[in-house]
């Protein structure tokens, strides 16, 4: 299939509760996904706290493209592409730093950190040239919600708020857990690569069916209540938030437990500084509610996964190679809980993570598995018969149901079918 001129037969590829194996293995489809999803929709790029000072920059990505996220001298955030407007060399090779300008090593063109061409050597060779037309490329649109910076290569389309839709509230819910109502991404990233299609990762993030099996080894030896949250008896729900976004809403279980910071496997007594600050910020009653509910477990399509205490940023490199960039969430002004957030994150995630190495193993084995030609489809029908609507009109299912996956595919198909 040549993506440019063959229109995939979507009715055969994606059905309400099954998808073809080739959805994960077809390189032409991946090229089409770049056009229809990664280089069109809102994609999470970075967090404002990664460039706290004027002239800070950090190297980020949208799919296989590198994106330089800068903060200019006036404090404005920019998403620039790492391609010299002269003959295409990369203007920046550093992961992060502080620089007012970027000089291309090839012929010395220099760009300010807001993307403008500042000058070039031997300028007499460019008589009459309009420098204002020769800035760095940039991500067409940029928008920020709760400090999360998103970019879209589409000039027109939904606003970020519209794109986030039902998932917007989950980011509000996240930052509420910070006494200053702000999170920070300051602990640096682990970059964990898997030989797998990116959609296996997206699906797994809110798959409540796998933890009891994939993570049985760690649940067996660590005192962790996570396993019970994803049992068939759990009162937690899986929720399709629309727009491809989904969550495992664990609050029903945490509310049953009725213990502040129970969601984080600790207690208010063990984090007195954090608790005092939360009480001061919200009042004791409200702080108690927030600390019982905890942070969300939400997959924001297509690439931001907030997993209670950490964020994962999913970056597809090709149809069968994906990198997950992961770091601990930090609550502004709360050092005692932040330390614990880092320690827990480090133990769980990344290439050697007590949890994520095993998820990674599943991604890779599944990628190899779907190379087999039969059966034609992956079966995604778990809990179809017990899907229901919640008070807000979202489709929800039991904790272990495949409601999130079905929602993701419905949205994916609509994006891929759009002109």
């Amino acid at each position: 299939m040549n993506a440019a001129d063959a229109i995939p037969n979507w009715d055969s590829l994606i059905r309400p509760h099954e998808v073809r194996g080739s959805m994960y293995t077809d390189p032409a489809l991946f090229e089409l996904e770049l056009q229809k999803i990664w280089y069109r929709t809102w994609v999470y790029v970075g967090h404002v706290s990664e460039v706290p000072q004027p002239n800070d920059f950090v190297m980020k990505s949208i799919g296989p493209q590198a994106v330089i996220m800068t903060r200019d001298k006036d404090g404005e955030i920019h998403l620039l592409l790492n391609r010299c407007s002269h003959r295409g060399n990369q203007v920046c090779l550093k992961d992060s730093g502080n620089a007012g300008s970027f000089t291309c090593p090839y012929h010395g063109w220099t760009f300010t950190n807001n993307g403008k061409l500042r000058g070039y050597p031997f300028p007499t060779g460019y008589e009459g040239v309009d420098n204002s037309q020769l800035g760095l490329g940039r991500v067409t649109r940029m928008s920020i919600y709760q400090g999360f910076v998103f970019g879209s290569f589409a000039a027109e389309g939904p606003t970020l708020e519209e794109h986030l839709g039902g998932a917007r509230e989950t980011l509000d819910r996240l930052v509420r857990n910070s006494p200053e109502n702000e999170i920070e991404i300051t602990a640096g990233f682990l970059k964990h690569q898997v030989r797998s299609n990116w959609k296996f990762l997206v699906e797994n993030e809110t798959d409540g069916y796998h933890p009891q099996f994939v993570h049985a080894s760690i649940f067996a030896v660590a005192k962790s209540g996570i396993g019970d949250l994803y049992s068939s008896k759990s009162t937690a729900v899986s929720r399709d938030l629309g727009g491809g976004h989904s969550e495992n809403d664990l609050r029903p279980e945490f509310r049953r437990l009725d213990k502040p910071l129970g969601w984080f496997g600790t207690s208010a007594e063990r984090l007195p500084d954090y608790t005092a600050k939360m009480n001061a910020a919200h009042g004791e009653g409200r702080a108690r509610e927030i600390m019982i509910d905890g942070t969300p477990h939400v997959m924001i399509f297509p690439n931001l996964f907030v997993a209670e205490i950490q964020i994962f940023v999913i970056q597809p490199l090709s149809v069968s190679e994906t990198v997950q960039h992961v770091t601990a969430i930090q609550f502004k002004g709360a050092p005692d809980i932040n330390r614990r957030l880092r320690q827990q994150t480090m133990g769980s995630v990344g290439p050697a993570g007590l949890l994520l190495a095993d998820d990674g193993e599943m991604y890779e084995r599944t990628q190899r598995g779907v190379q087999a030609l039969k059966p034609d489809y992956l079966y995604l029908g778990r809990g179809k018969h017990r899907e229901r609507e919640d008070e807000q009109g979202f489709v929800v299912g039991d904790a272990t149901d495949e409601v999130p996956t079905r929602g993701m595919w419905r949205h994916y198909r609509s994006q891929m079918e759009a002109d």
Partner: protein
Amino acid sequence: MAFDANDSLLLCEIEQFLYHEARLADDHQYEAWESLWTEDGVYWIPANGEGGDPEQVMSIVYDNRSRIALRIKQLLTGKRLSQTPRSGLRRIVSNVEMLGRENQDLRVTANAFVFESTLRGDLVWASRNEYRLRRVGGELRMAYKKVTLVNNDKALYSMSFLI
């Protein structure tokens, strides 16, 4: 630094210790490997270069002694999927140097080159290792092991074996 004959004997003992540690890791002898650690052992695999302050930034592994124990317990369940089947491993530890003493510990460095065979395929891991070794009850024990992978600034595939 200058070494005398006693140091040569000590260096030989250190090398034997490092080879032994390497073999236990290669052979997935988890309990025996764990027994090489002191009670305050720290196992550190930084990310992104030398890693900065591991108390502040993310590391691939930054295990205190109790987390080393947890890591081993998980492997011993036999259900750690990323090590079921186990990685095929052989490593070379070389360029062993004694850097000096710090309190009761010997500071040692070495290069390591690990060949790993997995379901995904074969991989080579290269690192500079730093150790702090301590004599406990007459035997050398490991109080600290830092594994600085040459490519730790890049995206890495899973590495759930003992490196």
